[in-house]
């Protein structure tokens, strides 16, 4: 395994972990969505790095998978944001558990 | 809903572009697109390029910002030279100031009343002004007053002279009557 791949693997691991942390610890949905998108990025990075992107001819299969994944992620995010606006409109709060609940 | 629409006087509103304006801009657009296409693909896919350029031109005509002004192609070169030179000197100027140990700046606001008509000339004015040494167009206030942020505002008149210089160049480029350069 090349050093480049190692670096990016560790990066992916770290970003994924940070994303999980952010998701669990964030209160606002917008932040949680950001965290999820970070995790998505990390997953994609891992997929490509593991696919041997750094040495030899790049493996096109993970690239195609990530491309699909990116499009799915953006659709899901866009829908989530629309839903978020609706949530704010319907409940007056953009948190899942309003502060007074705690 | 935003404050802008409430405060913007009607004089600044852009009238619905005429058919001629659309055509003119569409053609200009198509030329630009053609150049870009060639830069992107070379000469490999000319037919698709032609179709795309026509489609892009149509889209440009649809999205036309306002009345385009006629300009003379030959004057482009001189104008480009002016533009290049002023942006390079603007870069040097700001780099020097940023790296100066004592930060050689003295920010100040300056108002300058434009005489250029709305549309392309004024657009060009507002955008290029930000690339000139020491000036930055911050807002276009009612009555065509341009709010300029000057990095070296200790000598307002020098700044005004720079702005006026640009205004003159643009007027010349579009074959407009020379502005007074007074800005008040």
């Amino acid at each position, binding site marked *: 395994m090349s050093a480049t791949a190692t670096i990016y693997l560790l990066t992916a691991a770290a970003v994924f972990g940070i994303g999980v942390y952010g998701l669990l610890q964030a209160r606002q949905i917008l932040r949680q969505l950001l965290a999820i998108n970070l995790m998505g990025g990390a997953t994609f990075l891992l997929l490509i790095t593991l696919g041997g992107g*750094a040495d030899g001819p790049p493996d096109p299969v993970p690239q195609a998978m990530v491309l699909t994944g990116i499009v799915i992620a*953006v659709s899901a995010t866009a829908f989530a944001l629309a839903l978020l606006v609706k949530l704010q409109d319907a409940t007056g709060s953009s948190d899942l558990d309003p502060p007074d609940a705690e | 809903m935003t404050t802008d629409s409430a405060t913007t006087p009607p004089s600044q509103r852009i009238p619905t572009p005429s058919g001629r304006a659309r055509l003119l801009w569409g053609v200009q657009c198509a030329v630009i697109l053609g150049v870009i296409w060639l830069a992107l693909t070379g000469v490999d896919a000319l037919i698709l390029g032609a179709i795309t350029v026509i489609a*892009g031109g149509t889209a440009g005509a649809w999205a036309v910002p306002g009345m385009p002004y006629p300009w003379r192609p030959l004057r482009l070169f001189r104008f480009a030279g002016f533009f290049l030179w002023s942006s390079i000197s603007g870069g040097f100027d700001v780099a020097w100031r940023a790296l100066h140990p004592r930060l050689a700046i003295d920010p100040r606001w300056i108002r300058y009343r434009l005489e250029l008509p709305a549309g392309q000339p004024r657009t060009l004015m507002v955008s290029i002004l930000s690339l000139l040494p020491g000036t930055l167009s911050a807002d276009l206030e009612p009555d065509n007053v341009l709010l300029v942020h000057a990095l070296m505002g200790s000598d307002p008149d020098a700044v005004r002279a720079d702005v006026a210089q640009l205004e003159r160049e643009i007027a010349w480029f579009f074959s407009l009557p020379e502005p007074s350069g007074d800005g008040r």
Partner: protein
Amino acid sequence: MIALAMDAIIAIGLVWLALRTVRGANVFSAIIMFIVFGLIMSLAWARLHAPDLALAEAAIGAGITGALLLVTWRRLQVLEGSVPQVGAETRSLWLTLPTGLAAALLIAGLGWVALSLPAEPATAGELAWQRLPEMGVSNPVTGVLLGFRAYDTLLEMGVLLAAWLGAQVVASEHRPGALPGPAHEEVPLVGALLSLVVPISLLVAVYLLQAGGSAPGGAFQGGAVLAAGGVLLCLTGRLEAADQASLIERVVLILGLAVFSGVGLVMLPLGEPMLAMPGVWAIYLIETALLLSIALTLVLLFAAAPGLRRRL
């Protein structure tokens, strides 16, 4: 060595930005951090020899998602009105500590496992390279997307359609806070930007579609670029949300799915399996349909509206 240093800088940047996204001072700052994360991510893709992804990341990650996040944040603020945000932005310490710990453990575990991975030959990837000539395209990613794994791509169009349908449901009883208003037409530069960027986005979209056969690019990147032009039109108020999608919009929305399925089905009576491509022309036909559908879907998702209406 110097290449490694570059990778290290990119990696540090990514991790730091991720951290700042999560721990950002306020939501806005977190969004900006995330947008920048996307920028650096495309550098990482570049370094990993994945220019297709760099293109997609540039168009989708940095362009559309960023704008979408900012605009949503703005809509939320408008809806919130003058009511100040109540409560802390993040959870209390007793929750933060264990989650932090869990995340750290996850990172360590993932990292350890990733490092201990053997360098396996990628069977499917090798096969893809070997059999690429049968496809008639020379960009392996396009080959995988529209040939070997075309079925994924087809279902992915379903995902896009579902997302639009979802936005339609959500928008049905609620007009989302209007987009940054038509006021911007009066800002001279925006009009100019628009009149240039929209045609160029069209051009670049077609270019990417055309290039996709042999070089990085393809329907997704092209569609995203075209969508970016549409997003700009929405942002500047040239297009505004409509209650209903017009017939043309509906047709374009399902075009990708329908054409893809149709072409896939065409070969069935001839004894070929489902989704066998009749030829390279079919790939381009499908890609064109996909591009249009993707672009329109993304724009509609951005507007969070069932349909769009022209203004001006």
